[in-house]
C-alpha cells in the first residue's frame, strides 16, 4: 500500500531524514520507534505533505501512485490520515462542523454529493460511541480548552469518521492516562481491517501492548537502523536505544 523509497528531507537546510525506506502492506500495523530528535514526527509530516519540509530526494508511493508532489488535501483525499502529536485548536469551529467539512470536501474531490445530513448524524453517533465521546463535546470549538487526552481521542474520532486507508498515529499515546489509552487503542483496533494499514509512531512500548504491531522499526539520525517484530519493542523498552547505537558502530 505504502512504499517509502530513499526519502531525504530537510527543514531550513537542516537534514532530518537521510534515506528512509519502508514498505507497509494493507492489513499491517507498523511501529516506528526511536529516541527524541530521530526524525519520527518529520517522517509523519512528510508522508502527509507538510510544505515546511523539503523532500530533497526519494519517492512516496501510495497504491502504486506517486504522491510525492501532491498537496496535503490531495493526499487526504486518497486516504492518508495523520493523528497529530499536538492537535491544533480552532476556536469558532465545532468538531462536528469541522469533520462535516472534511468529509464533504473529500467526497467533492471524488465527484460525490455531500453526505446526507441524516447519514452524517448516524455516523457521528456511532463513532462517538465507539470512542466513548459525549456528543455535547463535539459541538464545542475544535480542540479548544480540551485536555491532552480529549484532543487525542478527538483525533481518533476524526480518523474513524474519515475512514482512511493509511493512518499515521504520531505519538498518540503521549498525554494519555491508561484508561484513555485503552479507549483510543480499542477504537483503532476496531477500525483496523485487511484493507487499511496503521503506522504507529511512539517513544514508548506501552501503546504497543494495545495496538499490536506486525513490525517494529527503529529510527535514528534520520534512518531506519533496525527492523524486527514486536519483541524488538520490548527489548527497546528494557535496554533503551544506546545498545543499537553501539551495534551500529560495530
Amino acid at each position, binding site marked *: 500500500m505504502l512504499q517509502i523509497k530513499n526519502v531525504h528531507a530537510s527543514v531550513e537546510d537542516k537534514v532530518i531524514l537521510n534515506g528512509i525506506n519502508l514498505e507497509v502492506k494493507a492489513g499491517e500495523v507498523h511501529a516506528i520507534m526511536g529516541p527524541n530528535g530521530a526524525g519520527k514526527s518529520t517522517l509523519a509530516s512528510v508522508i*502527509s*505533505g*507538510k*510544505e*515546511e519540509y523539503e523532500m530533497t530526494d526519494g519517492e512516496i508511493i501510495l497504491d502504486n501512485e506517486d504522491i510525492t508532489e501532491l*498537496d*496535503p*488535501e490531495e*493526499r*487526504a*483525499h486518497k486516504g*492518508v*490520515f*495523520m493523528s*497529530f502529536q499536538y*492537535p*491544533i485548536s*480552532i*476556536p*469558532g*469551529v465545532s468538531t462536528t*462542523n*469541522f*469533520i*462535516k*467539512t*472534511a*468529509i*464533504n*470536501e*473529500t467526497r467533492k*474531490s471524488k465527484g460525490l454529493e*455531500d453526505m446526507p445530513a441524516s447519514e452524517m448524524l448516524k455516523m457521528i453517533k456511532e463513532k462517538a460511541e465507539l470512542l466513548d465521546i459525549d456528543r455535547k463535546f463535539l459541538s464545542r*470549538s475544535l480542540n479548544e480548552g480540551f485536555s491532552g487526552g480529549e484532543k487525542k481521542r478527538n483525533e481518533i474520532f*476524526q480518523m474513524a469518521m*474519515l475512514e482512511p486507508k493509511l493512518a499515521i498515529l504520531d505519538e498518540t499515546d503521549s498525554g494519555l492516562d491508561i484508561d484513555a489509552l485503552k479507549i483510543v487503542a480499542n477504537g483503532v483496533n476496531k477500525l483496523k481491517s485487511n484493507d487499511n494499514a496503521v503506522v504507529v509512531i511512539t517513544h514508548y512500548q506501552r501503546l504497543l501492548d494495545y495496538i499490536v504491531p506486525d513490525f517494529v522499526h527503529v529510527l535514528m539520525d534520520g534512518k531506519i537502523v533496525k527492523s524486527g517484530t514486536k519483541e524488538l519493542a520490548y527489548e527497546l523498552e528494557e535496554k533503551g536505544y544506546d545498545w543499537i547505537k553501539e551495534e551500529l558502530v560495530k
Partner: protein
Amino acid sequence: MDLKDKLLTSHIAFEDNLKADSPLYDLRSNALKVFEEKGFPSKKEENWKYTSLNSLLKKDYCISPKGDTDIEFKNVKQYFLHNVDTYKVVFIDGVYSSYLSETTHDGIDVCLLSSAFDKSKYRPVIESYFNKAAKKEGLTQLNTAFTKEGAFIHIPKNKEADKPIEIIYFSTGNEATLFVQPRNLIIADENAHVQIIERHQSLSSNAVLTNAVTEIFADKRAMVDYYKIQNDTPEASLVDSTYIKQERESICSVHTFSFGGKITRNNLQFTQEGEYCDSILNGVTIIGDKQHVDHNTLVHHIAENCESHQDYKGIFDDSSTGVFNGKVYVEKEAQKLDAFQQNNNILISDKATINAKPQLEIFADDVKCSHGCTIGQMDSDALFYMRSRGIGEKEAKALLMYAFANNVLESVKIPELKSRINKLIAEKIGVSLGFEL
C-alpha cells in the same frame, strides 16, 4: 470654491426652506459656527492621523439633491432583512420614502426626525435630547447645522419594540457626486428595549459621501442593540459618528460590520453616566482592494461598577488599510470597573496595513482593565492541520477566517441578521461552506 465654503454659503438657503419657528434655529447656527471654526478634520489631528478625507473633499458635491426619485422595491429588496418582520425607515438620496417604509406610532414611535421636529407634541423630547450627546466636533456639528431628515425612534418606559427596526439610506446615483448628512435620534426610556439595523447603500457606482450622526439615549435599565452594516460600493464613503449616553443598569451594544465602501470612518463614543452600565462594542472588518476602514472608539466611564467590552476583528487583503484607535477613559469616580478591549487583525496580503492604537487612561485605582491587540498572518500550522483532513487550502483559509470572526457574530441577537452577516462574510471571502457558524 471648496466644499467647506460651499456648505457655509448654502446654509442660509437651507434655513429658508425650513419652518421659521423651528426650535432648532439657534442650535443650527451655533453648530455652523463650530464647523466654520473647526472645519473638516485633517491628518494633523491625532484622531485622524491615519485617515485622510482630502481625496473625498476635493470633489464637487451636490449638497441638496432633488430626491424626487423613486426606486422599485424589487431592485432594493436584497438590502432588507428577509423572513423576519421589521419596521422600516427608508430614505432615498436623503429624502424619506413612504413607499419603502413601515413606521408606527402605536405605543412606540418609529418615524421621521422631520416630523418629530414639526409636531409640537414632540417638542419637549427634541429639546431634551437633540444634539445633547453629540460632541462639538467639526463634522458632527456640520451635520447638526444641516439636520433635516433621519430616523426618530422613541420607545417609552417599559415598552419593547415588537420587531427589529431597519434604517436604510439609499443613494440612487442620479447625481454624479452626492453629499448627504442623515441624522438619527434614538431614545429608549426606562426599561425599554429596542433592536436597530442601520445601513447606507449606494445603488450606483457614482461617488457618495455620507456624514451621518446618530444619538442614542438609554435610560435606566434600557436595552439597545444597534447593528451597522457597511457593505457599500467602491466609490461610496462614510463618516459615521454615533454617540451613546447610558443611564444606570442600561445595556447597549453596537456591532459594526465593515465589508465595503471606499473610506469608512466610524466614530463610536459611549458615555456611562450611571452605575452598573454595560457597553458592548463589536466589529468585523473584511476589506480588500484599496479600501480603508477606521474604527475610532471611546468609552467614557464616569460611574462605579460598570463594564465595557470591545472586540474588533479585521481581515485585510490587497492594499487595504485599517485603523483601530480605541480609547477607554476611566474617571476617578468610576471604581470597580471591568473594561475589556480586544483587537485582532489578519493581514492576508503583504501590501495590506493595519494601524492599531489601543489606549487606556485610568484615573481610578480599583478597576480591572485589560486590552490586547494582535496582528498576524494566517496560522500555517492550523492550515496544515485542516488540509491534512482533506479541506482544500482556499476552504481552509476561509474556515479560519470564519472562525476568526465568529466571536463577534455570536453576540448578534437577531438570527436572521446573523445568517445574513454569515453569508456576507462567505461572499467576501469567496467561498461557500456547508454550515453557518
